[in-house]
């Protein structure tokens, strides 16, 4: 049956391949390059993402590109951002230009991937795992009207994988503690959901040796690596760190650097 099924699937895929090849003989490489290049530049250099008109229109796919890439033409006129030089400032602390951890300078505006993007279907299907995205953004909580989180950017090392950092000051220590408790609960449910799929994940509330405050850390499997979320709270101040699989800068180093800058 395997052979029969393989033949059937191949026939379907082949029919589609032939149709696409016939419809796109000219290729659209230029249009893709114009779309991707500024994004790469932004990701590498921390330049804010450029608006890309006509890209990713729901349901349109790259049919929207057309052989001549007409629907992407607005992007052609969008200037590719000049990568701002990322200059390390050894005296900079979290939130200041040039903040450097583990020899990597922070790239403003860059965000790390979500759990669903890194882990895949199992995380995407879990409401609890999906909620980690909000905690990674330090969103919500009892005092949602104040203390909006600030995205500092991400440390993007040689691997290209990012370690994203956000800061937030809660209205009170109690609010921060409640937030951490909520995260602990949600992360635990995410772990349970993933374990139901046969995956090994971890979540725990911890105090880091030698550092004030406490943290909740969630580690989810992503291929041969892991995706990790750390939220560390000192008093009413919190830092959230998302570590993409294979990232060069470890969350603990970022926390230590943040604490050093925060408490001197």
């Amino acid at each position, binding site marked *: *049956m395997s052979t029969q099924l393989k033949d059937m*699937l191949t026939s379907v*895929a082949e029919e589609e391949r032939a149709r696409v090849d016939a419809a796109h003989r000219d290729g659209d490489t*230029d249009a893709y390059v114009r779309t991707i290049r500024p994004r790469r530049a932004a990701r590498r250099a921390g330049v804010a993402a450029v608006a890309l008109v006509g890209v990713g229109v729901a349901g349109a*796919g790259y049919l929207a590109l057309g052989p001549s890439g007409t629907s992407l033409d607005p992007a052609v006129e969008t200037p590719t951002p000049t990568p701002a030089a990322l200059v390390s400032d050894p005296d900079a602390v979290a939130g200041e230009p040039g903040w450097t951890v583990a020899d990597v300078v922070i790239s403003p505006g860059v965000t790390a991937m979500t759990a669903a993007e890194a882990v895949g279907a199992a995380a995407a299907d879990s409401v609890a795992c999906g909620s980690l995205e909000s905690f990674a953004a330090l969103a919500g909580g009892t005092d949602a009207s104040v203390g909006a989180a600030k995205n500092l950017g991400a440390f993007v090392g040689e691997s*290209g994988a990012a370690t994203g950092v956000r800061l937030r000051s809660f209205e009170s220590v109690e609010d921060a503690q409640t937030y951490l408790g909520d995260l602990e609960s949600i992360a635990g449910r995410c772990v349970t959901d993933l374990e139901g799929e*046969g995956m090994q994940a971890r979540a725990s509330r911890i105090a880091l040796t030698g550092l004030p405050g406490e943290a909740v850390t969630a580690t989810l499997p992503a291929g041969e690596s892991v995706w990790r979320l750390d939220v560390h709270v000192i008093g009413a101040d919190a830092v959230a760190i998302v570590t993409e699989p294979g990232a060069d800068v470890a969350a603990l180093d970022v926390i230590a650097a943040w604490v050093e800058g925060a408490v001197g």
Partner: protein
Amino acid sequence: MARTGEAAGRGLTMNRWQGVLDTMIRERRGALVGYAYLLAGDRPTAEDLVHDAIIRTFTRARRLDDPRAAEAYVRRTIATQFLNGRRSRAVARAKQHLLVERDAPPADQTAGENAEVTRALGLLTRRQRACVVLRHFEDLSTEETAERLGISTGSVKRYLHDALAVLREELRGLDGADDREDAGVRVVAPRGGRR
């Protein structure tokens, strides 16, 4: 700096990743859409998946100098995005009636058979479909399929078992015992035949 393909002809100087992208767009996009079509079941969604996956892959990856590795990344992203179900679910549902006209006579026998296969795949859940495509089209092992989808091997076997039972019932000519090692997938008497 390399100049490659059509874009080079227009005077664009290419980085290495652009050369790989050019190769992929010109030589492999059709195959990628075919792959995505098996997962998604309709053309707009399949093309959307490929479009997004290419942009994601080439935006994020730092080193892209091997076309085969790049294609593997794109395929992985297609499957992940498909399972994430962003945007595509509603589109697929909305377009489904356009794709399969059960009562319409097929243009030729192959087209008719392909429509039947597509219709049958459309009866599966997303995960079942993904398991069938990765296992029986991409020829991944059970373990590789599990790793790719981020689920256990037991789940893969369960999804395949259920999926193959549906396909066997829906598709004429798809019968007999499963000869894949994973198929603790013992399927009972095929009922075969089209409805």
